[in-house]
């Protein structure tokens, strides 16, 4: 049974302009983990910003994802649902990376026991598999172009079927997020093809 607080939280989110649906995912400990909004909004960024503010009042740890209901129309023009990064954490105590991704209202979590660069890429592949994608690639290299901030990370994946490599590049606020985004970048076209084929 939902508490009054949970009910009011959902009602507040639903009162945002253009919001059609609210999905709330909880951790096994009962804490709200991800809040997914499906919105028919003219300004999805503004909707996400307002929803994040509301969520921060009720559940500060929750990630907020806004799915664009209009995107289905775009899908027909060849743009598949996009995989979005919800969070990427590196636990310095146990040396594990955890990455959570979202696509089309679903979320997947992947963990890997390496540093932010390799761990970030491996955890991303695991999260994609958790989302149900069959990703026939193995991680070859993860390279930080230089040991400084604001420099890109390059990820190389090798196909399990042949030796065709895929490359992805991303620059973000830290190595972990860069590694995740570079991994997604390398698989971008492959994932779109899967979505179009309904896999």
């Amino acid at each position, binding site marked *: 049974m939902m508490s009054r607080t949970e009910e009011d939280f959902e009602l507040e989110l639903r009162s945002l302009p253009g919001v059609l649906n609210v*999905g709330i995912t909880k951790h096994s400990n009962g804490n709200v983990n991800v809040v997914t909004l499906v919105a028919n909004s003219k300004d999805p960024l503004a909707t996400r910003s307002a929803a994040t503010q509301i969520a921060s009042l009720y559940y500060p740890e929750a990630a907020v994802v806004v799915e*664009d209901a209009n995107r289905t129309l775009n*899908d027909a023009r060849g743009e598949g649902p996009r995989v979005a990064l919800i969070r990427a954490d590196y636990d310095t105590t146990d040396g594990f990376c955890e990455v959570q991704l979202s696509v089309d209202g679903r979320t997947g979590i992947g963990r890997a026991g390496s540093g932010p660069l390799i761990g970030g890429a491996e955890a991303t592949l695991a999260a994609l598999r958790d989302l149900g994608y069959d990703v026939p690639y193995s991680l070859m290299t993860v390279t930080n172009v230089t040991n400084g901030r604001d420099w890109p990370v390059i990820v190389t994946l090798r196909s399990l079927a042949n030796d065709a490599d895929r490359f992805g590049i991303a620059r973000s606020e830290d190595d972990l997020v860069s590694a995740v985004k570079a991994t997604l970048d390398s698989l971008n076209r492959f994932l779109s093809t899967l979505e179009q084929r309904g896999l």
Partner: protein
Amino acid sequence: MRDDSDEDSEATATLTSIRVGDGPGFSGEAYEPWLFQTMLNELSERELGVGFIYSILDLFANRHQLTDVAVVLVNEGFGTQMFRLGGEAVTTDMAAHLNASPGVYCEPDTVPAAECDAVRTACQLALSLHLARFSAAHDPLTNISNRRSFDEALEVAAARSARYGWAFTLVLVDLNSFKAVNDKFGHEFGDHLLRQFGFALRQAVRQGDTAARVGGDEFAVILSNAEGHESSGFTERLKGHLVALGNAIEFTTGTATSPRDSTDPSELLRMADARLYEKKGIRIA
């Protein structure tokens, strides 16, 4: 695809393509004892709201062994709203299909349209009641409590304080020079500032405290289990949250503590107000 006019087609399509029970509304023929009983049970425990919609969808799915069910409602305050079994998000693909019209969408499609109609009507009622209850108690601009619910909260706090000696501090907050800001930058900007202030206020209060907008640029807070001197912590938190939002507006506070100052709500309000204006007077002087 199946709808009211096509009830015999095969139930092989997915949830996104099935629509049942989008008729004009609840009728005598659509009376459903299980639904009526559920509503009575729910009403005896709490008020109908969003949670009730999920309870109904859960019962409905169990009753008809549905693997998925969603209800689409159209509400005056909200526009189109979709609710899915288990509080799950609908996919964007579903949203595009469900957006067509209000109704109950079932997978598999095995439920009589009349029962779907009854479920939809009950869900519509629950959403309307929740919205009405929320609107009656909250300020629409800031989403914090309004004057009416604040007065009720103050009455309750004061009565407990008088009876059990539980301390609380009433803080009145007045924005400085807000009228000048409004006049100079326009009401739209003024509303933006008020929304930000309301948000900062919500961040600054603790669980169990009450924050309310009690006038145009006047706010009030009930700090539970707090003596007067503890209100400085709240004020600092509020300033910090305003800075984080990039909101430079300044404010003045006046406080009164129960039971030390009084246990009468009107007297507490009068004292806090007098102290607030005393501070403003000092500031002006």
